[in-house]
């Protein structure tokens, strides 16, 4: 009996490694496949389908985007502008609001917390939100991609607020005694001390903006304003692909549609891969604080 148990443990460790390796590979495989297709020769895709190791490698997919991808470049630019402007604004709104809510001398801070909390429990849904956006003129312009839905998130607010509450209150009180007002304390003392949590929150916002296509599908019809993600959404069929690459539709030239599509996917993931070390560090930290302790 005991002997049986011991052998089971001995074979247990390799099994654990095997199971984890398997899941990690399953996570990696679709991404590698996408990368491989983006670097495949179009003829070998048509002949053999998507392969991890294609018969012939080729940069035609990327070349097509480089030569003909006017809208894709534009989309890249739009995505960058929206992400940078949006996360900056969102950080600003969130960080400013967190300070008073973490300040015990603000008597109505619980009312404020409730005010924000209610919106986490109940929202009117898509239609009232949509009608409000159209009413505010947030259609077919850059602001429509930046302002609605993404510019403030109550979860992030509470994350920053909780962090500020963990700082010693004596900081604020001694600054009061030295004659500083709340604006000064917030900007000069609290914001610098909150850098880690503000970095986390900024990354949360930036990723949400970079990955967003909801605002585009709801509020933007003008092709020149499509962010990258929405271009990908539109590009899923090859006919729509031709539409996005207006100069590529000549008869004597077969468009490397499959590889070009996957190349666009890879280019869209690019900035995420680039920022991945930071994303991993701050994201997991913020998520753990928000869900286990928060």
């Amino acid at each position, binding site marked *: 009996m005991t002997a049986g148990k011991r052998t089971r443990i001995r074979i*247990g460790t390799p099994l654990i490694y095997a199971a984890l390796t398997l899941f990690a590979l399953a996570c*990696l495989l679709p991404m590698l*496949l996408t990368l491989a297709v983006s670097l495949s020769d179009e003829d070998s895709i048509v002949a053999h389908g*998507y392969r991890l190791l294609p018969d012939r490698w080729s940069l035609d997919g990327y070349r097509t985007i480089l030569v003909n991808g006017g809208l894709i470049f534009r989309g890249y630019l739009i995505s960058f502008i929206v992400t940078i402007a949006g996360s900056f604004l969102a950080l600003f709104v969130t960080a400013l609001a967190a300070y008073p809510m973490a300040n015990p001398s603000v008597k109505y801070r619980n009312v404020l917390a409730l005010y924000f909390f209610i919106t986490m429990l109940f*929202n009117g*849904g898509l239609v009232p939100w949509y009608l409000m956006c159209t009413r505010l003129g947030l259609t077919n312009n850059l602001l429509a991609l930046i302002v609605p839905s993404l510019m403030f998130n109550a979860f992030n607010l509470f994350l920053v607020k909780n962090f500020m509450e963990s700082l010693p209150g004596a900081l604020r009180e001694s600054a009061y005694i030295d004659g500083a007002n709340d604006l000064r304390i917030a900007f000069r003392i609290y914001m610098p001390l909150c850098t880690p949590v503000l970095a986390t929150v900024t990354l949360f916002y930036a*990723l949400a903006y970079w990955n967003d296509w909801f605002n585009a599908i709801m509020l933007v019809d003008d092709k020149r304003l499509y962010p990258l993600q929405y271009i990908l959404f539109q590009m899923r069929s090859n006919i729509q692909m031709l539409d996005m690459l207006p100069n590529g539709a000549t008869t004597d030239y077969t468009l490397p549609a499959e590889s070009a599509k996957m190349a666009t996917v890879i280019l869209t*993931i690019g900035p995420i891969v680039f920022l*991945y070390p930071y994303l991993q560090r701050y994201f997991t930290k913020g998520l753990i604080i928000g869900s*286990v302790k928060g």
Partner: protein
Amino acid sequence: MARFFREVTRNRYCYLLVLPAMAYVFLFSYATYPYLLIAFQRFDYRKGLLNADWVGLDNFRFFFQSNDAMRVTLNTIQLNVLFLVAVTVVSVALALLFNEIRSKLFAKFAQTTMIFPSFLSWIIVSYMMYSLFASDYGIINQGLAALGLTPVNWYSTPNAWPAILVGMKVWKDAGMSSIIYLAAIAGIDGSLYESADIDGATRWQKTIRITLPLLAPTVAILTLLNLGKIFYGDFGMIYALIGDNGVLYPTTDVIDTYVFRALRQIGDPSNAAAVGLFQSTVGLLLVFIANWLTRRFFKEGALY
């Protein structure tokens, strides 16, 4: 009232700082609530909210008498329950496995790979999914053909999709949520394991008797939190992966995609608003129930 003004003037800078966020939430949440009234109207964009014709409960009647009501409601609940169970089981299992690993380098490497999909948008995921499931070029059909089996036209086989969607959800989310459970395991008092070692407990016994029971509250709290959201379909996921592929609606169409189509494609905002109101109301009720349950069993984990 005088006390209110005294407080506001005394902390004027603080209230000034919170003002942008308050205004934002007011505009995009509170101020949108009156538009819920269009659920009881035949709304017309030109006439606006105040001059529209009132139709009572007609929009609700239209929805509940259609075949769609049952389908989208059941699909929403069914898919969410499947997602919740699958992601929880897999991520708890991953966390328990990671907890047994001594090699820091391996753990780091495996986690880096598993977390990555959670940073991708569902649009990106839809392309990766396509590279697996495409009927002509997809890897899975190539595999089936190599084994001498008939390739399946996945994108016109509705019955396969609950499983595919669950798989994609686990693929994208399990790695990240295992990190949360791993953090909870790290918080378990180490002396428990030491005394178990002295008593000669095996690794398996320690996992079953110590780690799992102590992890259970975290699992339960996070599950209850998600239970409150069970009436909200994941629009970003479903619409990115399924799109307007009507063949797959029987198993994949959820309330949120239905509302989206009613509003943006069919162009019937009143019907869409009625369904949305139904969803928000039941959703709120579920949050209350979930929170009541949490408070009942795990006092510190309750939302409010």
